[in-house]
């Protein structure tokens, strides 16, 4: 069997008396899109926070690319190749899209303590960043302040930044949220190709996208994974149908 890129085992997180993550075990294998679905309040966000390092788990382990990263900070995990996008796009609004991506490129090159060379004359930064922007289709809007980009364009920008990091896995938190039907369609198509670059853990409410993309689906309810399987298995699973899918299946 191929070694999973990301391996989460028996993860537990309590907030007071509330067990937000209740023994979650989950893995992400090379080349796959693993969708994580579940009703609001199921603990998806809490789980993501623990994976990317903004929250510390109470017990259990998170292995990424062969290392135990459970005690690492956000920046360390990102440097190891955990690329993520946010439910609400996270960008530097005053900078242009280009300079946002250049920030990721310089981080990847490992050299933010350079004080004298102007970045806007640094071809190695600009060319790499432009290549990433081209891949997500933002070339024409590269020089516009990120604050002026549309919702969908900010999503694309975030993905370009994750690409620039040379991520070994992508953690995408509701990338379809707030996208129009056209945007969802082209993003679905893009993610379909992205999985060959690095596997994707996809947290998503848009079931059409999930069913179209996912190799496997895990269903999270009350902090617990109640089922993991292929699209067909999940559609047929009676517990999942009562807990979540309802008339969608």
């Amino acid at each position, binding site marked *: 069997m191929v070694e999973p890129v990301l391996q989460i085992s028996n993860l537990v997180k309590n907030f007071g008396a509330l067990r937000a993550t209740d023994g979650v075990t989950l893995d992400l294998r090379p080349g796959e899109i693993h969708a994580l679905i579940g009703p609001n309040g199921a603990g998806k966000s809490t789980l993501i926070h623990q994976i990317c390092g903004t929250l510390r788990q109470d017990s259990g382990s998170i292995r990424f690319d062969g290392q135990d990263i459970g005690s690492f900070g956000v920046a360390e995990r990102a440097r190891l190749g955990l690329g993520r996008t946010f439910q609400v796009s*996270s960008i530097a609004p005053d900078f242009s899209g280009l300079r946002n991506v250049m920030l990721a490129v310089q981080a990847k090159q490992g050299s933010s303590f350079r004080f004298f060379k102007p970045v806007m004359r640094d071809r190695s930064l600009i060319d790499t960043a432009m290549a990433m922007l081209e891949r997500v289709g933002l070339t024409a809007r590269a020089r516009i302040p990120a604050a002026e980009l549309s919702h969908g364009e900010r999503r694309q920008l975030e993905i370009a930044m994750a690409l620039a990091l040379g991520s070994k896995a992508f953690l995408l938190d509701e990338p379809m949220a707030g996208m129009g039907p056209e945007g969802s369609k082209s993003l679905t198509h893009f993610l379909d190709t992205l999985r060959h670059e690095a596997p994707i853990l996809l947290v998503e409410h848009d079931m059409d996208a999930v069913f179209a993309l996912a190799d496997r689906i895990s269903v999270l309810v009350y902090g617990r994974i109640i089922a993991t399987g292929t699209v067909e298995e999940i559609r047929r699973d009676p517990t999942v149908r009562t807990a979540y899918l309802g008339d969608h299946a």
Partner: protein
Amino acid sequence: MMTLTRENLINLILAVMLLAVPFAANALGQPFYITLATRIAILALAATGLNLALGLGGLVSFGHAAFFGIGGYVAGILAAHAFSGDPLLFGLSGSKQMWVIWIAAVILSALVGLAIGAISLRTSGVYFIMITLAFAQMVYYFAISWPAYGGEDGLSILVRNQFPGVNTMRPLTFFLICYVVLLLGLGLFALIRASRFGTALQAARQNEVRVATVGIQPYRIRLTAFAISAAVTGLAGALFADLNRFVSPSMLSWHMSGELIVLIILGGTGRLFGPLAGAALYVIFEFALGGLTERWQFFLGLILLAVVLFARGGLLGLLAGKAKHG
């Protein structure tokens, strides 16, 4: 190449005006105005230091008087030891050479900045403002209660410190020294702002989570920026002590910290020439209004209110429009 944008043109005019005034004053035999221009240059340099932390990094330090005062005391103490001949520390003697004093002021301010920043930067927002203020007040009270160097009365520098090849007691010469140092400080600011480090620093101001998510630790970036910021303000403090030939705890007081913040807001936060525009405005107000009424700071308050309400970009924001970030 530097393109002649509207902002660059305004910057150039400001720089030329600051240079022209002392020469005119010198020709007209009005040395007082040279002192005024020197004061503007030094305050602008101090605020340029703060602008690195506050303008680029969004770190509202209410304690930069500590570095300004430390620079001042370095000048005063080294000069006092050079005058008396007593060794300073570990057999080192004092110095009357400005460049020795500057290096000492820069190093000491940076080290203290590193120490204060290391603790303060673990907080943010109002707590950061308060903790930087608290540290500066500690330095202030330390200076007051240290009788060896004048305590509350401060320390006089009998003869202005020296610079090789020139007579620093000539007001115009001393102004030119300060002017060149200011330009170097502004150059450093411009370089840092455009660099990789500056990119990370400004991004951390805009969105801390974003910076961490690409794998850069905002804390390290900010701490480095804070130390550089402290060093530049400390250098200005050394010049200020030489301008007045006197250093006292007032350089360390929280009024001074507030004044530096006011200069930046007046001129334009994060703008290259914001501190110079702000310092010029401040000193001119102080002089013009101060001649009319002792309550000139009341009117300064009104102006500051107007800037904050109607001209968020300060004077440069009014004249040159919104800042561009690339």
